[in-house]
């Protein structure tokens, strides 16, 4: 039943390694872009706030599949933007997929961070200002430490969703786990359930520990109010 694993025709570990790499780079990119967006959305400058709000509302409501397909069909094939990957199609697809994922996931990171800042009671900042702390001190000593501790759980959810969302990269031919599964299902029709089981197990191995670990961290660091 599990012959397809030992036949050597399918590089299952390699495909999951691509999934992990996609997740890793997209997570870092999304964290940076999401933090910038969150900064804009809570800034005192009305124009920055408006841009942040418009961006988040537009991108959140667009399917990730469209964004990824657009980065391949629109950016690369129409406009010829290859993100410095030269002629190597694997590299181009990989980088475009990460770009699409960052554009999309950044909005969820932004919303998580913003809700974290909103959970800090206004009284905390008012008390700090009354004590004579300046803006930077209020931000770094009072607000951010409380905000960060309350966003561990939401950010963990974003990370898990991102891990699962990397499968969408299959739409532009990135050789990650779901594309390999599609190929295996076409060739190994007698081992349908085994193929599904193995790939599903792979994703559970990736997502479950992340959730458990970060859930535990979130509980430990949460501010009890």
């Amino acid at each position: 039943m599990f012959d397809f694993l030992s036949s050597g025709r399918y590089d299952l570990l390699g495909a999951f390694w691509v999934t992990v790499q996609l997740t890793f780079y997209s997570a870092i990119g999304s964290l940076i872009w999401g933090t910038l967006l969150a900064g804009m959305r809570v800034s005192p400058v009305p124009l920055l706030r408006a841009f942040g709000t418009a961006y988040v509302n537009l991108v959140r409501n667009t399917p990730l599949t469209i964004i990824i397909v657009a980065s391949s069909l629109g950016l690369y094939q129409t406009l010829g933007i290859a993100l410095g990957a030269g002629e190597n199609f694997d590299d181009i697809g990989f980088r475009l997929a990460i770009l699409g994922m960052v554009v999309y996931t950044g909005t969820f990171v932004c919303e998580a961070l913003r809700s974290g800042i909103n959970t800090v009671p206004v009284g905390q900042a008012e008390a700090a200002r009354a004590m004579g702390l300046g803006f930077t001190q209020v931000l770094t000593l009072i607000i951010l430490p409380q905000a960060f501790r309350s966003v561990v759980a939401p950010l963990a959810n974003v990370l898990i969703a991102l891990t699962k969302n990397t499968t969408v990269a299959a739409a532009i031919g990135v050789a990650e786990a779901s594309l390999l599964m599609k190929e295996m299902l076409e060739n190994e029709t007698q081992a349908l359930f085994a193929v599904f089981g193995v790939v599903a197990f792979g994703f559970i191995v990736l997502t479950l520990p992340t959730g458990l670990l970060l859930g535990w961290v979130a509980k430990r660091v949460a501010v009890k109010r």
Partner: protein
Amino acid sequence: MTSVLYDAPGPSAKRRNIIYTVVFLIIFVLAAWWALDTMASKNQLDAEKWSPFVTDSKVWTTFLLPGLGETLKAAALALVIALPLGAALGIGRLSDHAWIRVPVGVVVEFFRSIPVLIMMVFASALFSQFTNMDSEIRPLWSVVTGLVLYNASVIAEIVRAGIQSLPTGQTDAAKAIGMRKGQMMVFVLLPQAVTAMLPALVSQLVVIVKDTALGGALLGFNELLSQVRTITANYGANTIAALTVVALLFIAVNFALTSFAGWLEKRLRRAKKSSGAEVDRNVIEAGGGIV
């Protein structure tokens, strides 16, 4: 407006804000100019690439609207099947009997932690091998199956969180007047839980609508996104224009749903018919339901 982060701006803060505004505008205009320039150099801004969407009603009647119809059909089917299934799973997870609670929990956690695309691809292979389903409707049902498996388990979590968000006094009072467990669930807990979880359910619809696009890109399902291919084939390589219009249609549908969820939330809170309980989105999204 009081914000946690800043006070009402004084004179020097106002000056600083103007500087930030100008700097941002310059960067934004430069980026937009670069984008438009790149598009223009590849002839993507030519009028005939964009005008069909305004002047030629056939683009809408033959491609866009049928595509949108398929998208909405798949989303509606998925919701209608997933809702009762999810409710049953959610209540099952709260059962007092371990032999119901544990297997249901395993099923829910399993389908929540694997990508929805994996389920769609599996369903497609399953249908083509074990059923003689017509190959024209197979993509639709593969997409619906994947969506149902995934969203039923998410809805199960919403239902569970909705019931658990109720004050414990509700359960105690129901027990005190001698209700049995079934009666308590049907007459006391569920009606209140529904109001607590309605906004979360409507938001989940957005996820379902967005996920249908996966079927278009990978399973040959004729939904909205897949129309980009046929439009560019018929109207002269207007990829960017077609993608933009399709994206805007998705955004319009989903924005309407999001606004409805927000309105519903406000209204339910104002109506005071609810117990004031609210479903914690974190509980639902744990395991991550974002695609």
